[in-house]
C-alpha cells in the first residue's frame, strides 16, 4: 500500500485565467489529519476541490494512491471520486429525509439496499441522529444538518475525507461540541482527513499537521505546534497570532545565542543564523511578560524592551497590551497581573521574553 494517499506535483488551478492555486508539492500521508489553514480567499477550498478531483489543474500532476490521475477520463475520475467523500461549510442536503440523505452516496455506488440500510443505521447511531431518521432535511438545526452531512460522507467508508470549514456557519457552543465529536470520529475510523479552516483554534484543536495557505500557495507545512510557535514567514506569523515582529539585523553570536541589532535595543535569540542577515524577531504575546520600571529583570537569556502602554484591550480571560517604545511589542497579561501593575495608557513598562521563546524570520522579500 502506498504511503501517500494524495500527492500534488507542481500543480496550478486558474479561474477565468486568474491563478488561484499554485502548489509545487504537497503530500498527504495515509491516516493523517491535515489542516489547511488560511484566510478566506487563500485557496483552501480550491485546494480541497483539486484533491477531491472536482477541479482540473491547468498544469501538474495529482497522484491518488500511487496512481497519476487522468483528468481526461470521466469514468476513471468517477471511480476515484467514489473512494472519497466530503463535508462542506453548508450541509447542502437534498430535499429528502435524513435517512435518504445519508444513503445518497451508497445509492450512487449501487450498494444493495439491506447492506446500505445497515450502514446508514450504524452512522445515524454513531452521530446521535437516529431519532431524526425520517425528518425532512429542511427541518434540521445547523448542528444536526452537519451531523447528517458527516454521516453521509462517512457511510461510504471513504479513503479520504474532505472537510471544508464544516463549523464556520455554526454558533460557538455547537462548534465546540461538534469539533470534539468530529475529531473522535476521525480518530476512531482512521480515515485520512483534510480539513480546511480559517480558525486557528480549530487547527490547534484537531492536532495533526497544518499547511498554511497564503495567496493560493502553501507557504508552510508542519506540526500545529511548529507552525504556531515557529512560523517561517511574517505573513504566516501574523496569521497564527505571533503579534510581535521586531525588525533587526544579525550582528554575531555570543554565548550560544544569536545577537540581533534592532536599533534602540539589542536582542538575543536562539538559532543558527549568519551575521548580516535581515530578520524579524518574532514572539508570541503569551511569551511576553510585563514589569514595573523599577523591577530588575535583565538576566542571561532574557530580553528586555522598554516602552509605554499604547493600548489595552480586555478579552475574556486576559488583557491584550500594546506597548510602544524601542520596538512595538504586544503582550497578553492575566487579569491578576494587570491589576498588580495597575496598567494604564501612557504608563512606562518593561516587556521581557526569554531568548528561547523568540525565533527569527527572514526579512528579505517581505
Amino acid at each position, binding site marked *: 500500500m502506498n504511503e501517500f494517499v494524495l500527492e500534488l506535483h507542481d500543480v496550478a488551478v486558474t479561474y477565468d485565467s486568474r491563478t488561484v492555486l499554485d502548489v509545487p508539492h504537497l503530500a498527504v500521508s495515509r491516516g493523517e489529519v491535515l489542516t489547511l489553514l488560511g484566510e478566506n480567499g487563500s485557496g483552501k477550498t480550491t485546494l480541497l476541490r483539486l484533491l477531491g478531483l472536482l477541479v482540473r489543474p491547468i498544469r501538474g500532476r495529482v497522484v491518488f494512491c500511487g496512481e497519476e490521475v487522468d483528468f481526461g477520463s470521466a469514468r476513471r475520475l468517477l471511480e476515484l471520486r467514489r473512494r472519497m467523500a466530503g463535508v462542506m461549510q453548508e450541509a447542502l442536503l*437534498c430535499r429528502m429525509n435524513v435517512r435518504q440523505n445519508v444513503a445518497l452516496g451508497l445509492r450512487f455506488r449501487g450498494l444493495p439496499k439491506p447492506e446500505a440500510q445497515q450502514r446508514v443505521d450504524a452512522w445515524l447511531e454513531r452521530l446521535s441522529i437516529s431519532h431524526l431518521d425520517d425528518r425532512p432535511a429542511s427541518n434540521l438545526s445547523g448542528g444536526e444538518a452537519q451531523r447528517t452531512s458527516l454521516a453521509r460522507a462517512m457511510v461510504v467508508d471513504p479513503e479520504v475525507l474532505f472537510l471544508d470549514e464544516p463549523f464556520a456557519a455554526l454558533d460557538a457552543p455547537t462548534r465546540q461540541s461538534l469539533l470534539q465529536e468530529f475529531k473522535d470520529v476521525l480518530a476512531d475510523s482512521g480515515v485520512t482527513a483534510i480539513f480546511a479552516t480559517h480558525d486557528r483554534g480549530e487547527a490547534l484543536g484537531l492536532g495533526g499537521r497544518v499547511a498554511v495557505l497564503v495567496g493560493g500557495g502553501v507557504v508552510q507545512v508542519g506540526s500545529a505546534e511548529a507552525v504556531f510557535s515557529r512560523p517561517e514567514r511574517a505573513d504566516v506569523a501574523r496569521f497564527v497570532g505571533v503579534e510581535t515582529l521586531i525588525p533587526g539585523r544579525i550582528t554575531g553570536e555570543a554565548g550560544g545565542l544569536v545577537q540581533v541589532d534592532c536599533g534602540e535595543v539589542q536582542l538575543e535569540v536562539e538559532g543558527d543564523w549568519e551575521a548580516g542577515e535581515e530578520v524579524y524577531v518574532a514572539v508570541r504575546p503569551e511569551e511576553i511578560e510585563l514589569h514595573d520600571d523599577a523591577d530588575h529583570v535583565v538576566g542571561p537569556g532574557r530580553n528586555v524592551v522598554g516602552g509605554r502602554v499604547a493600548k489595552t484591550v480586555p478579552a475574556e480571560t486576559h488583557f491584550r497590551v500594546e506597548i510602544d517604545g524601542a520596538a512595538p511589542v504586544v503582550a497578553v497579561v492575566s487579569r491578576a497581573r494587570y491589576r498588580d501593575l495597575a496598567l494604564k495608557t501612557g504608563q512606562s513598562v518593561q516587556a521581557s521574553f526569554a531568548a528561547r521563546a523568540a525565533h527569527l524570520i527572514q526579512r528579505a522579500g517581505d
Partner: protein
Amino acid sequence: MELIWNGITQALSLLLQGNPQVLEIALLSLELSGLATLVALVFGVPFGALLAFKVFPGRGFTVTLVNTGMGVPPVVVGLFVSIVLWRSGPLGFLELLYTPGAIVLAQFIIAFPVITGLTMAALQQIDPKLLLQLKGLGASRIQLVAVLLWETRLPMLAAIIAGFGAVISEVGAVMMVGGNILGHTRVLTTATVLETRRGNFEVAIALGLILLALTFLITWLLTLFQQRSAAR
C-alpha cells in the same frame, strides 16, 4: 339566460347517460395530449438539462429560440406541421396529415419548448455548490441529473402542468393538422368548436365541462403531489 341553463342541464344528462361518442372523444383527447406531453418530457428534460449545465457555442441563441418557442402561436405550429406533412411536403410520404399522429406531432412541438425552458430554469436555480457536493459523493452524470430533477420536483411538476395544459386546451393547430374527423381525430376542443358552430350548445357545454374537469383533475393530482413534496 334560459339558453345557458338548458344547455347545462342537458349537458349534465348527456354526461350522466355516459354518451359513448362523448366518452370516446374525451379519451382520445387525453391519450393524444398525454402522449405528446410524455414525448416532450423525454426530449425536453435532457435538452433543458443540457442548456442548464453545458456551455457550448450557440447556447445563447438556442436558449432564445426555446424561450420564443414557449410563446409561439399554435396556429403557426399548425401551419408549419400542415405544410411539412402535406402530400407534396417533405414528410408527405408518411401520410400523417389528418391522423392522430399529426396531432401528437403538433402538440409535441407546442409542449417541447415549454418543458425545455421550464426544466432549464428549474435546474439553473440549483446552488452550484450542491452540484459539486453530489459529484463529490460519487454521482455519475446521470445520477446527478436524476437527483437534481428530484430536488427541483416542484418547478418540474409546474413544467409538466404547463406543457400538458398548453396542449390539452389547444384547438387551432389540432384542427389544422387533425382535421376534426369523427372517431379518428376529433378531440374535445375541436368538437366543442364544431358543436358551438352548429348551435348544439348542450353538447358543446358537455364537452367543455369534460375538458374543464379533465384539466382540473390532472392539475389537481399533480398539484397534490407537488404540495405534499413542498411540505417536506
